[in-house]
């Protein structure tokens, strides 16, 4: 087990290093481009040369990469061109906001999707099963920006119940969180529900469930005591991997509702060529994604009684 965990962590580090190399090459191989981004399009050639000289941009590429990586690992993320402050100062509060959003999305999505998935998978092919499946197909077919538009039209334009933007200008407000959370839950729950359904349906066909039913256990007890434990192993992995999807979703939703989170920051940084901010955001995104993947793998192996390490 320990070897397996170490292997997974090793692969995680390898992925991060490869990604950092690619990102570095993509954004910093053209040093003139970097100088233009930092000093602005109206800077003179000499100014750019001086800046590049001062910051060691004429050194060989691998030296620059190693220096960049070293600074990055020790927490020096550089300075944002747009905000004129250290990247970390902007990034951390934004990450916190996204964490709040993500927490509520999961707090709503997990119970909803698990319950629907279990109900659908208990009796495969039943009317309830079909209608839950079709509903989840419909909700996953609506892109996040479209459901943001639909929900805004209903709740903001017609019923005037909720605010249309979630910039939290006057401090934290739950009301402003409702629409972003709803949009993300609607887009994501269908997938988890279908995975839970498939897993539940598979468990329901196994021999030990048949045995449990035949020995006269009440149906409730069969489901709760025998089926669920095995049926919930696969959804656990899916939910962890959902964090990767959520990182994509927050870009759209935060942009749509002007929520001051990590996704909106990454998008703004990309649109304004705020190079060190892009690098930091991308690395954080990959770190979260790969980290949760590793956790999902390790957790799956730990939970699954069929896999045992001697």
């Amino acid at each position, binding site marked *: 087990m320990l070897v397996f965990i170490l292997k997974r962590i090793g*692969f995680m580090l390898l*992925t991060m290093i*490869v*990604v950092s190399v690619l*990102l570095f090459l*993509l*954004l910093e191989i053209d040093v003139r481009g970097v100088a233009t981004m930092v000093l602005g399009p109206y800077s003179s050639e000499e100014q750019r040369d001086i800046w590049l000289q001062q910051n060691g941009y004429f050194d060989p590429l691998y030296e620059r990469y190693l220096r960049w990586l070293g600074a990055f690992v020790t927490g020096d993320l550089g300075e944002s061109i747009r905000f004129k402050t250290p990247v970390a100062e902007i990034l951390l509060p934004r990450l916190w906001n996204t964490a709040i959003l993500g927490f509520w999305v999961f707090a709503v999505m997990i119970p909803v999707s698990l319950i629907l998935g279990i109900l659908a998978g208990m009796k495969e092919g039943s009317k309830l099963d079909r209608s839950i*499946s*079709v509903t989840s*197909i*419909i909700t*996953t*077919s*609506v*892109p*996040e*920006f*479209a459901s943001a*538009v*639909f929900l*805004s*039209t209903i709740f*903001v*334009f017609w019923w005037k119940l909720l605010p*249309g933007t979630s910039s939290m200008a006057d401090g934290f407000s739950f009301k402003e969180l409702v629409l972003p959370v709803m949009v993300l839950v609607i887009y994501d729950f269908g997938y988890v529900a279908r995975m839970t359904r498939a897993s539940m349906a598979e468990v329901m066909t196994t021999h030990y469930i048949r045995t449990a039913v035949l020995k006269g256990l009440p149906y409730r007890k069969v489901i709760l005591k025998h089926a669920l434990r095995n049926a919930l192993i696969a959804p656990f992995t899916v939910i962890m991997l959902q964090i*990767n*999807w959520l*990182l*994509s*979703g927050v*870009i*759209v939703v935060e*942009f*749509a509702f002007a929520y001051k989170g990590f996704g909106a920051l*990454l*998008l703004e940084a*990309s*649109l304004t*060529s705020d190079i060190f901010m*892009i690098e930091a*955001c*991308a690395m954080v*995104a*990959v770190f979260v*994604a*790969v980290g949760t*993947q590793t956790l999902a793998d390790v957790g799956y192996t730990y939970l699954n009684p069929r896999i045992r390490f001697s």
Partner: protein
Amino acid sequence: MANSTTVTLPAQTTGAALMRALKSFSLLRESWVGMFGAGLILFWILVAIFAPLLAPYEPNATVLPYQRPFWWAGVELAEGAPAFLLGTDHVGRDILSRIIYGSQTVLIYAPLATFCAYAVGILMGLAAGYYRGWVDDVLSRIADIILSFPVLVLYVIIIATFGASPVNIVVAIIFASSPGIMRIVRGLVLDLRNRDYVAAAQTRGESSWRIMLVEILPNARGPLIVDACLRLGYVIITIGVLGFLGLGMPPPDPDWGGMVNETRQIALAFPHMTLFPCIAISSLILGFNLLADGLREISLRD
């Protein structure tokens, strides 16, 4: 003798493939979900083909700004004023016409990008699954690394670095989707490569790529067709989302996601400007997802 068999073989296989396609189509009629999906797709394909006949205005022509649809609550048309079925946008372009022409954009680029991603993904998956060993290791690691990226983060960085153009969007989609296709193909090939007909072909001395493309690939088509439908829907979402984020097709030509992006600031006063493009894109994606569900249901029945 050997020659004559190889000559007749393609004709037989295309004939048989045609029969099978017809058979699966008639099977599709049993799944109302799949039929409904196919109907939605067909509707948009017809709209895209007959766009010049259907659209009441030129898609980029300014007619009259800020007009609500004539049936919208509280809209009263003055005598002789033009009536707009879906209203006009902030610069006065007819939204109906832009949605009709926008279907061309999405129905050209989404299948194109998906097709190219499949070409790349299938070749990589065949190689990884057939040769195994270090080829498999290298290709699978690359796929793992690309797939570990949150997709949209990948798209945003690629498009923001190289600029928003149709070609870059297609390339970014190929880059981000082919690893997923490769994984599926690889899994199918690992299963199929041990079949007798593959061994027979190897004994006949056929080349590796001929075996992969002629013997193995056709037998893997079932799951791939279902996946292609789902993936097409997802590529349409991607193109729409990029348009919505302002990283999509360059203006002024109509693009559903871009239409939402252009008018989102005034959407709370004029919701019709964002509402109808969103309905259009959602219905097309729904079509592909329902068709995929119907096809999967049929394939499970066999």
